[in-house]
Every structure is written in C-alpha cells, then in structure tokens.
C-alpha cells in the first residue's frame, strides 16, 4: 500500500475528476436526491478503500460506474446506507435539485422513450447516451464482453429511433442538450 499522503493525493485527484460524473450517474437513476447522495458517498467510500483496484486513466470512470451500479442495486434492495457520510451533501443536493433549471436536463421525450424499452435496452442506452460511454466501457460497467454490448446497443438504438419517429437522437449524443463530455464511439 502506498504511504498515506500519496494515497490521499491519489484519492483527491480521483474524487475531483469523477465526483460530478458519479453524482450524475446516481441522480439519473434515483427518485430522491438524498438517495443519489448516499450512492455517491458509498461509491467513493469503496474507491477509497479499494484505491489500488481503481484502474488508471480512462478506466477509472467505468470502474466507478460499475461500483455505483452495484451500490444502487443494494440501495434499492433496502440494504441501507453503509456509513453515515455526506449529510451536508444530502441537504445541499435536495435544495439544489429543487431549483434545477430546464436547460440542464435531458430531453424528456428521449427519456420517456427509453423507459418504454426493455430494461436491458434501457440500461445500455443510458450508459451510452447519458454517461457517454463507448461499448468497450459499457462492457466494463456491466461485466459482459464488448462483443455482446455492440449488437445490443445497435438494436437498442434502432428501437429508440423507432419510438422517437422522425426525431431520433444522434449516435452517442442527445441533440440540443448542454452536455460537454460525451465521446463518440470509435470508427467501426
């Protein structure tokens, strides 16, 4: 294990780089802001305790999403919070979300259409459209081969396009939304 100051520095960098992404991931999948705060707290607690397991570079975010996804599953199952962390974050997040402006939300029609897909299609599309993940990264989050994700994503996109009629989202993007950090898939 690295010495404590170095470990803390590593964790501060990880936290700074990915806090918004993990919180966004949780907010988009929970009904209550305080639940999203709990999922975020627990996810970073796992990261703190398993820092040696966090992949370097671009691999960190899918790893954190994978932890957040499992944390969320446990949360929904009623396992409750693992540590009473982030009380102030819970309070601030509840107020901040109440004041959320319309220009910083995803398109409601796309979100509604995704809910009409199967859970499997919905999840892979959420990871692609909301989190901006490439199929390879989605595979890491879900723990399945990329070769399985690619056709699944392709089918899910087709189904979403069919539901949206003449106004489909562009590949890898939601049109007219102020997202800045969504990456395109690689050339295939």
């Amino acid at each position, binding site marked *: *294990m690295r010495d404590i100051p170095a*470990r*803390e520095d590593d964790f501060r960098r990880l936290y700074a780089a990915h806090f*918004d992404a993990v919180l*966004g991931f949780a907010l*988009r999948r929970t*009904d*209550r802001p305080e639940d999203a705060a709990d999922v975020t*707290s*627990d996810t*970073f*607690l*796992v990261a*703190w*305790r*398993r*820092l040696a397991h966090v992949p370097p570079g*671009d691999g960190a975010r899918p790893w954190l999403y994978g932890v957040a996804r*499992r944390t*969320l*599953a*446990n949360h*929904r*199952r009623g396992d409750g919070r693992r540590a009473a*962390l982030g009380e102030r*974050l819970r309070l*601030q997040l509840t107020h*901040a*979300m109440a004041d*959320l402006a319309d220009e*910083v*939300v*995803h398109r*409601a029609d796309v*979100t509604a259409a995704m809910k*009409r897909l*199967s*859970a*499997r299609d919905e999840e892979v599309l959420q990871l692609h459209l*909301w989190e*901006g993940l*490439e199929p*390879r*990264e989605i595979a890491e989050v*879900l*723990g399945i*081969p990329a*070769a*399985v994700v*690619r*056709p699944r994503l392709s089918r899910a996109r087709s*189904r979403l396009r*069919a539901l949206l009629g003449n106004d489909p989202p562009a590949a890898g993007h939601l049109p007219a939304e*102020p*997202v*800045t*950090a969504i990456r395109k898939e*690689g*050339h*295939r």
Partner: protein
Amino acid sequence: MNRTITDAGVAGLALHEGRAELLEEIMTLAPVETPDPATVPRRRRVLPVLAAAAAVAAMVAGAAWLGVQRDEPGRDLGPATAGSPDHGTGDRAVLALPGWLLDNVDDAKQDGELSYRKGDQELDVHWRPADQYDGYVADRDDIGPSVEVDLLGRASLMWAYGKRDHTVIRPVEKGLTLEVRGTGMSRAAFLDLLGDLRLVDEAGLAEHVRVTERVSPEDRVYQAPPVPVLITADGWQPQVDDDGGVWWRGPDGARLSPAWIGGVDDPFTYDRYLDNTNREEIRILGKRTLLTDWKEGGEHYRVVATSPLVGDTILVLEAAGMGRAAFLDVVRSAAVVPDGEYERVVRAAID
C-alpha cells in the same frame, strides 16, 4: 425523479461545501480493503446467471397449442374456454423452457419485467397497470397494423417491428396488462414461444425467480450456441463469465470474444461495418468472412464476421491487442465440432 439531469447540470449544482465535506469524511476512515458491493438482486437487476434447463423444465406444464394456430394472423381466438390448455393462473407471466436464461428481473408489483435470453434470441415479458393499456396500444400502432393472436388464452394484439422482432399486448386481466416481445426469432418461433409462457401470481413469480437462482452453477451457466464452434489453436482455452457468455483466453492474456448475431444476411452489409473502408474478405469455417479492424480507446480491435452459419445468424469473433497474423491464426483455427464435444469442453471451463 421526473427530470433527468445532464452532466453539465450536475457540474452547475451548488454543492461546494457538501462535496468538500464528504471528501474529508471519507479520508478520515481507515483505508481498509473491503469487498466490492455484490451484484445481487435489486428492483431492476441483472442476475448473475439464471434459468437452469432442468429446474425450469420442472415448471413447464405444456401449453404448446399456440403453435398450431400460428399461421392464422388476424384471427380472434377469444378467451380461454373449457378444454384449453392450462395456462396457469395469475396476472403476470413467466417462461419455463429449457435453454432460456432469465437474465434480468424487475419484480415491481405494478410495472415489472422479466428478460430471457437464448443465444441471440431475447424474450421480454412486461406487466403494467390497467390504465397503461390504451397508451401502449396506441404507441405500438405507430409500428404498423396489428393482428390478433392468442396469448395465454386471450385474444391479443401483435405487431412486427421487423421480420425477427415482434411484440404482443394482452388485454387487461386482474388489473394488469401483459406485453411480450421476442427478438432474434421468426414470427413462427415467437408464436411457438408464447405457448410456453405460464401465468403466475406474485408468489408464483417470486418462486420462479427463487428456483432459477437456486440451481447448480453448472446448469446455470451453460448455454448451447447456435453452432458448436471451438477455437483449436494451441494455448487457447474457453472461459465462461457470470452471464453465461463464452469467450477465449489465449497466450499472454490475449482474449477472443464470440458473438452470435441474427438477422444478418451478409456480413458485408452489417451496419457495424458499413462505414469502415478497412475491410477484407477471407474464409473461415468454410464461409466467406469479413475481416476488419479499428482503433477505439487506445486499443486496436480486430474482428471477423462470417457469412450466416445457420439461418441468417452470423458469428462475430472480436479481439483486442493482437497482431494481424496472430489474430488470423486464431480465428482460422475455429472449427465446428459435435454438440457433445462442445458442451464437454465448455462445461469443463465452468467453475
């Protein structure tokens, strides 16, 4: 949450103190290595591995009579009558058929879903509150005209998203409406499969999920592929992941992932490759095969996609981090073997 926030929206939230305080709170805790949160049941969850052929078969009570009526579109079969097969009782439905994996469960009381998979075929069973029936029917009418078919003893509406993608909605019964969607299978196969569904109540659903989770690891994960293909190159061994998927590990950590894709007449027209000019034709498994490669996320991917090996199902073999010659050596070692040999080799790889 009614509105789905973007990452840009998250970055703009006034959370500075809460965010900073959480960071300090976490770092006051001992950095003790703890297990990752387990991937286990949740409201909408991916089960590690699920339906076992043997366990599920015990729940099948027949109900295959739909098959004989599958080529009569537009026919109103009416409600179940005396003498009809036993569809079970309840307001939701489960599939109890060997070879099908239950790989996703959303067991909400009013709006839930089960997702089954067999190779490239998928079957999704939804149940929804009665007041959503009209909305979903109107939505599906955008697909095109519906035809009436029987679903669990009730005249129901079926639409075709494509020649291998159909969905059917059953009228409200006991406060819930059912929708069943089959992908990766013909219309006839879909209608056949509907005959293997069984109605269950809430307790029956829980039992179905419980039984499928209880089966032995070996039965849970083995899935027969559309065609039994083994990699025979030296140093390559099959691996089976929690989802039941088979992949191959080679020397120096090399990895080859197969995927069976249905509904593709010709790999050269498969949409994944349409915009890729770096394509070459080779022969594998005696078939015309497309070889292509690309870079993504710093990795160099190489892929071959065969002409249909069975029906309109193609085999895609994908690897990352391998040179062209090594990749060709591996994929050219692919061989069709007897079913029993494939099963023996793959089962040996299951923990």
